[in-house]
């Protein structure tokens, strides 16, 4: 790497970051790379806002009597934590930041198909975020992130409408991003880049985009109907005037279960890139991994009823939803097995991105397997509405999606900023995140199994030890998230200059300079080999980078 640093070009090289200066050049940019950075700044802010609420909740729960905040405030904390983390961090995280930056780079294009729509999607996101934050500071919302009726209609006593409008609006940002990616991947691949030569990150983004395009409009119309019910006072979801509150849950989960895969599928794409690079091997079973993403996208639309096993839906519907939910575990398992098989006899090195990727595999596997308990009708009756659920989806969303996001940020950071970050600090942070995460959420599995319900501001004293463990883990986890914030900021100014391909990785994005020029590639690339052509160690082909 020292040699690479020495050959770094003089500082005058024009790239996308220094091509133009000034606030206008950012706020009116149509460059997908700059829009990715706009998103990066916005979602990082939202992540720490949502994280701050988690900190308050964990502090509150140290004491069984819950002395820190009023129980009503506690309701608002977990509601706003969920709303911000899901709609304003997790859903845009990998697609809007890494996807925006990488999709055109990985297919050898100059930009996304619709650059202005791309910028529009960021503005829509900002409007939605501002409305939601306004709702938060002007009283908050206490319905839970699910906006279940009648909490959100008949018995609403907080800023439900303003928050719902914010979420409604931000949904269109997600739709536009997905639409842009699908068209770009279909129509703008470089010569020679066939579908089955594409990096698996692109397959994952493609599958994600399909869910965004098909699912998000349904939650939009659902929120719209809630709004109309509140304005007109007619019975759409209100049983008092003939509406059906369960219909809301059906419509909501028709989107929100696939939305879980909007959050995890991109992470799976990132992991495929990192695992192959740091074990210097072709992915094991490329087509299986690619099609498993598509299978997840399709099956994800057929499993929503497993959120409703205890709502009194038909037992036969429950049976079918249970079977289908087990089915969705198969493509997920295929991925985990194939990543593991890729590691087998690879030349593995443990830089920071790889630590995150390995952490992902372990935590995602635990999150996935505990999902099977919830897909089983009988065990779900016991576990539904307990901390077991909280632990399960945090293993997927935080242990999975956030780990993959951080791994991806560390992997592509040299490409995005043109700077290297201190690897030792990054490894320490990855280890702290892994430990802190497990200490936070593993006790919650036990709490849930023992019967502690979620969303309560107080609990019986017998649960205190596990709760204190969880809160202690959360503080470690918080430190683990703050360390990268510090050294990544530091590296933007003081980090060593990054070479074009610091990891000797494959993929078109590594063949251009770091940071890339505004046009991405000075000469349009042509693809002549499959993805991940990492040769056997020792051959000239191995990690070839010239």
């Amino acid at each position: 790497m020292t040699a690479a640093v020495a050959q770094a070009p003089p500082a005058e090289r024009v790239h996308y970051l220094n091509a133009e200066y000034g606030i206008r050049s950012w706020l009116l940019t149509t460059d997908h790379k700059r829009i990715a950075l706009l998103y990066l700044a916005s979602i990082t802010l939202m992540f720490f806002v949502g994280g701050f609420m988690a900190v308050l909740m964990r502090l509150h729960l140290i004491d069984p009597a819950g002395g820190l905040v009023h129980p009503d405030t506690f309701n608002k904390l977990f509601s706003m934590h969920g709303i911000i983390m899901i709609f304003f961090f997790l859903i845009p995280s990998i697609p809007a930041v890494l996807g925006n930056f990488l999709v055109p780079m990985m297919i050898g294009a100059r930009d996304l198909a619709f650059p202005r729509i791309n910028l529009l999607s960021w503005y829509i996101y900002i409007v939605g975020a501002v409305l939601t934050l306004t709702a938060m500071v002007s009283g908050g919302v206490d319905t839970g992130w699910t906006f279940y009726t009648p909490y959100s209609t008949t018995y609403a006593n907080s800023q439900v409408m303003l928050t719902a409008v914010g979420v409604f609006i931000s949904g269109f940002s997600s739709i536009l991003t997905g639409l842009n990616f699908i068209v770009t991947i279909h129509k703008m691949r470089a010569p020679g880049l066939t579908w089955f030569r594409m990096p698996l990150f692109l397959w994952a983004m493609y599958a994600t985009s399909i869910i965004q395009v098909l699912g998000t409009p349904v939650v939009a119309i659902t929120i719209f109907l809630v709004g109309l019910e509140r304005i007109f006072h007619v019975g759409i979801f209100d049983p008092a005037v003939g509406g059906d509150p369960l219909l809301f849950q059906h419509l909501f989960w028709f989107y929100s279960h696939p939305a879980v895969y909007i959050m995890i599928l991109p992470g799976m794409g990132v992991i495929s890139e990192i695992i192959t690079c740091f074990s210097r091997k072709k992915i094991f079973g490329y087509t299986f991994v690619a099609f498993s993403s598509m299978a997840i996208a399709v099956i994800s639309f057929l499993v929503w009823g497993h959120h409703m096993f205890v709502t009194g839906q038909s037992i036969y519907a429950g049976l079918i939803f249970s079977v289908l939910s087990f089915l969705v575990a198969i493509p997920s398992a295929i991925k985990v097995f194939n990543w593991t098989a890729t590691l087998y006899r690879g030349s593995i090195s443990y830089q920071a991105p790889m630590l995150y990727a390995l952490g992902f595999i372990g935590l995602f596997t635990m999150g996935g397997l505990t999902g099977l308990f919830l897909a089983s009708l009988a065990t779900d009756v016991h576990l539904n509405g307990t901390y077991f659920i909280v632990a399960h989806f945090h293993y997927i969303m935080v242990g999975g999606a956030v780990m993959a996001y951080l791994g991806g940020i560390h992997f592509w950071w040299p490409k995005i900023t043109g700077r290297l970050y201190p690897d030792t600090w990054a490894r320490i942070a990855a280890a702290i995140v892994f430990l802190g995460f497990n200490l936070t959420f593993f006790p919650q599995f036990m709490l849930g199994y023992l019967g502690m319900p979620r969303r309560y501001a107080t609990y019986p004293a017998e649960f205190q030890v596990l709760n204190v463990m969880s809160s202690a883990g959360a503080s470690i986890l918080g430190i683990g998230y703050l360390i990268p914030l510090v050294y990544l900021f530091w590296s933007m100014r003081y980090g060593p200059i990054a070479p074009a391909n610091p990891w000797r990785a494959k993929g078109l994005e590594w063949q251009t300079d770091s940071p890339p020029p505004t046009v991405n590639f000075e000469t349009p690339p042509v693809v002549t080999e499959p993805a991940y052509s990492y040769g056997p160690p020792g051959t000239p082909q191995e990690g070839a980078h010239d």
Partner: protein
Amino acid sequence: MTDAAMEHTAAHPRFLAHHFTDIEQQFEAGTLGMWLFLITEIMFFGGLFATYAIYRLMYLSAFEAGSHLLDVKLGAINTAVLIGSSLTMALAVRAGQTGSRKALIVFLILTMLLGGVFLGVKAHEYHHKWETGLVPGFHWGPTEEVHLHPEAALPHVELFFCYYFFMTGLHALHMIIGFGIMAVLVWQAARGRFDGGYYSPIEVSGLYWHFVDIVWIFLFPLLYLIGGRY
């Protein structure tokens, strides 16, 4: 593609955005983008249609009674008007393809006129519903005239009218947006933007307009014709 020099050559005509390799790629991307957008619209209206279907099953007689309070003649006229506007839109796309500026502008304006007739009739219907107290929430309280239909007193007729206003209102909103798009196209056509064999915006706007028409083709029977009185 280092740029400005190539900007206006034949290989890189002025309407080709710089991030596309050629005009064909740009055209295909635009068309695919519009089809995907229409899929999101189908899912959007689909949610509304699904809940409509559920409540129609639950409260069939109320929905039939509500349907009897709509003016099926006006609905039929509007259906014909809208299908006519689809024809003029298709002719506008053809005029764009053949590069005939005059025909393009004429057909676009005709489409706008027919759209305007539709919205006018719709406004008349809304006004009538207001006068007879059939606007849910704000102005509910069916008048004497309505009570000539004995079933109108059924509970949940208000719910039917809720759906009537949501669905036709959302549809009318799409028409108004289409109206705006058409106005921009006329302005661009008058300035000669589409003279060089470039008609992608007309084509994708046409797709949008036809989609809005198809939504109405579903709305008309669902709202006006249920109840088996014909």
